[in-house]
């Protein structure tokens, strides 16, 4: 058995930022476990620019953003272990990890930060009818093959899903010499940034078909074509709207799912909306000493927010280890539930413990639909305490409200905070 104070599972943007913050909070004995051969996670393949405006006040590519944090980790001499996969974690915080270099090891930690990220929704989970030939890739798999391995995955491409990864890959494939025939989106709006629609599609005359989906895949060995159809408000295909596109590749950019198999093994309670664990204001799951941050907690829109959230997890985990005794001895704590309603899908965190709450708490959430002229309202036990008007709200963008400890202290018996959207008259 190997012992460490803090073990961070995942060396992507969340894990790196958590490690830096934990170290800067005075914790020394930290280990980052990463399954890839480099740190940086998915940023290594996100070679486009647009990262870091909040964190570094400049526009960076994914690998550059990662390199800034990797440099901090190295400078702070935080140990990390590459090419290592965590097989199991239990409630006693014993981590089973395997690698070629070190074999099978068990590490016992005082605290763990889960930062495993997310995965893409595959074709099978989308129930796209048709054949199952080669040439169907999730956008991220194609991105890795093209940007890191240096392989071209296809020549004539159709993309389903207009989230940012789908849009970015439309441009990327075009620049590498492929013909992207169309990007189809099931919803009546794109989940991607306007900038990406303009610069990844419009710049190259790639049509975007909203309220469309793939209803058939052709090709016994390799994709030979797909059929698109328009969908109605029920998202079911409308007969008579079918259009055939010949192509050799179908890229799927249809949503990300937090990768929480280890979290479930530990027995932490899960939130069915985020597919991530339930956490309190310290980003601690309901298994004491196990924290979560980044896309494993909920899928973020900007890496900058991942870094910010992860830093909080790192700081809290460090405090938990340093003050373990004090925390468990805590006399009484008021637990306030956070509730999302009326157009707000979820909140992270889902609860606040007043005794340990920081002076300022950022609550993040997403909305359920594209809303114009609504306000985001916060209620304390039924009483509205804030209202912020928003000209536009979109599911693709994460929203946030900041709660102040001082304002909560005015309501000592507070049980529930509701965050909801309200229409502006």
């Amino acid at each position, binding site marked *: 058995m190997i012992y460490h104070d803090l073990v961070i599972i995942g060396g992507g943007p969340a894990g790196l930022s958590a490690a830096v913050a934990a170290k800067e909070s005075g914790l020394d004995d930290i280990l980052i476990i990463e*399954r890839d051969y480099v740190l940086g996670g998915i940023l290594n393949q996100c070679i486009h620019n647009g990262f870091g405006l909040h964190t570094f006040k400049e526009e960076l590519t994914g690998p550059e953003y990662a390199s800034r944090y990797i440099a901090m980790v190295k400078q702070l001499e935080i140990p990390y272990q590459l*090419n290592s*996969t965590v*097989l199991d974690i239990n409630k006693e915080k014993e981590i*089973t990890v*395997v*690698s*070629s*270099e*070190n*074999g*099978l090891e068990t590490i016992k930690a005082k605290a763990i930060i889960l930062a495993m990220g997310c*995965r*893409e929704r*595959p*074709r*099978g*989970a989308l*129930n796209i*009818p*048709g*054949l*199952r*030939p*080669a*040439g169907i*890739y*999730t956008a*991220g*798999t194609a991105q*890795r*093959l093209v940007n*890191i*391995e*240096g*392989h*071209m*995955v*296809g*020549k*004539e491409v159709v993309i389903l899903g207009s989230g940012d990864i789908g849009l970015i890959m439309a441009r990327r494939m075009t620049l590498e*010499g*492929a*013909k992207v025939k169309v990007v189809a989106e099931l919803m009546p709006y794109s989940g991607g940034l306007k900038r990406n629609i303009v610069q990844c599609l419009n710049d190259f005359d790639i049509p975007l078909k909203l309220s469309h989906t793939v*209803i*058939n895949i052709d090709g*016994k*060995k*390799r994709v030979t074509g797909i059929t698109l159809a328009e969908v109605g408000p029920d998202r079911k*295909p409308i007969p008579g709207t079918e259009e055939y596109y010949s192509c*050799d590749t179908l890229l799927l950019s249809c949503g990300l799912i937090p990768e929480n*198999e280890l979290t*479930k093994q530990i027995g932490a309670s899960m939130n069915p909306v985020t597919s991530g664990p339930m956490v309190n204001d310290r980003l601690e799951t309901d298994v004491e000493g196990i924290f979560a941050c980044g896309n494993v907690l909920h899928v973020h829109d900007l890496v900058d927010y991942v870094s910010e959230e992860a830093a909080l997890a790192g700081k809290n985990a460090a405090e938990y280890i340093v003050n373990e005794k004090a925390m468990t001895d805590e006399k009484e704590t008021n637990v306030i539930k956070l509730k999302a309603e009326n157009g707000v899908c979820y909140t992270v965190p889902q609860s606040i413990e007043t005794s340990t709450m920081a002076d300022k708490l950022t609550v993040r959430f997403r909305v359920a639909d594209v809303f114009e002229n609504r306000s985001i309202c916060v209620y304390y036990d039924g009483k509205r305490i804030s209202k912020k008007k928003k000209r536009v709200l979109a599911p693709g963008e994460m929203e946030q409200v900041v709660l102040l400890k001082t304002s909560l202290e005015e309501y000592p018996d507070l049980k529930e905070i509701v965050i909801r959207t309200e229409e502006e008259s």
Partner: protein
Amino acid sequence: MDKQICDVLIIGGGVVGCSIARELSKYHCNIILVEKEEDVCSGTSKANSGIVHAGYDAKPGSLKAEFNVKGNARMEELSKELDFEFKRNASMVLCFDLVDLPALEALLERGRANGVSDLSILSGDEVRRLEPNVTDEVIAALYAPTGGIVCPFGLTIAMAENACDNGVKFYFNTEVLAIEKTNDGYIAETNCGTYVTKYIVNAAGVYADKIHNMVSEVKLNIIPRRGEYLLLEKEAGKHVSSTVFQLPGKYGKGVLVTPTVHGNLLIGPTAMDQTDKDLTITTAEGYDEICVKAEKSVKDIPFRQVITSFSGLRSHESGNDFVLGEPKDAEGFFDAAGIESPGLTCAPALGKYLAEMVAKKGRFEENTDFNPRRKGITRVADLSMEEKRKLIQERPEYGTIVCRCENISEGEIVDAITRTLGARSLDGIKRRVRQGMGRCQAGFCTPRTVNILARETGIPLERICKNGTGSELLKEEGYEYDLS
């Protein structure tokens, strides 16, 4: 490769062909198996329910009934000999309506007539005690403790490897185009040369009619009957523990809900007759039909956890039974045709039966060197901590996890590629070690597996395939789309 000479030419590397190959390798004879796809287990054998039927379903006296019970009895011992996954998880046939009770009792009687042991009829409450997720609509069920589940890839590949180790030669990507009768046997023309043989075994699955009709005037007609399935995540795998069928009633033939040997939940199949012999599409209608029917049996199925859907083609022969042995007008040509459900269960017994028939005809002597044992691929996930530690120490490649959903190591993938009849495609690896069969459906591991396959086989990257020529995964570099 222009001309090959053998005693027995087996056409088809599905579960039946591989079973016959293995059983025939117990005799001294020269056996060749030809398969038109790039690997064994590439047709009907790869896409089915994976059920080891108890044997109450088939009409007493039919070949299906006889071989079902024999095959079921043989499966456990075979799974130990050949190291593939099999579990006797019991099966039940649910009855939803009082008017159908006589039909349920008839099924019990039929099972007893077929020689199925330990059958009983349970009340609705007894059923729900065993299977708490069965719906309240269920009023009774036929219970068959001998029912089981098997990995169809595991079974087929194990028999193929063992046959190969015992001397059977396998030729892939080899499609029989014509067969000619000679004085003392047959000449089969393929896309890869000529095979001169004394005997032919026709185990060509949905194509068995085409092969049969090349030599016989007593024509066969095999209708590909497509069945669609849904596969759910392992998290859903304990939703039922036994295989749950539905008694055919006024709602038509039902679907089954079953755990798989690997712990997923499998639901299906539909049944749609078609003419195309390799159009394995899934449809929106099929998906809806499966969901509606399955919910009649089992409540709260987490359809959100579907990780993939697939379809397979059953070889339905118009005569509604297996067609086994020599047609009257084609001596030395042995059919194993029309092998639809419960064909997978029957395969071990069918192989033995046909091999004995061919061996008798050819007066082959017993091969005393026959080795019945085959060792499967070591699965790191199944080992104890101590065994894992030791293995990784000796073979570090078992410490590198490639498929993170199923925790498949590089060592397992290399074993799948380098062993007897090793995988040559991504699907071949998947069927051997389950790489890419998990929830991400190969999203993360495809780039790495492609590299390992290329490294181990020397196949250039741009020729690495999903499942044979034409299914290349990557395009050659430097391609520029012609904008004109």
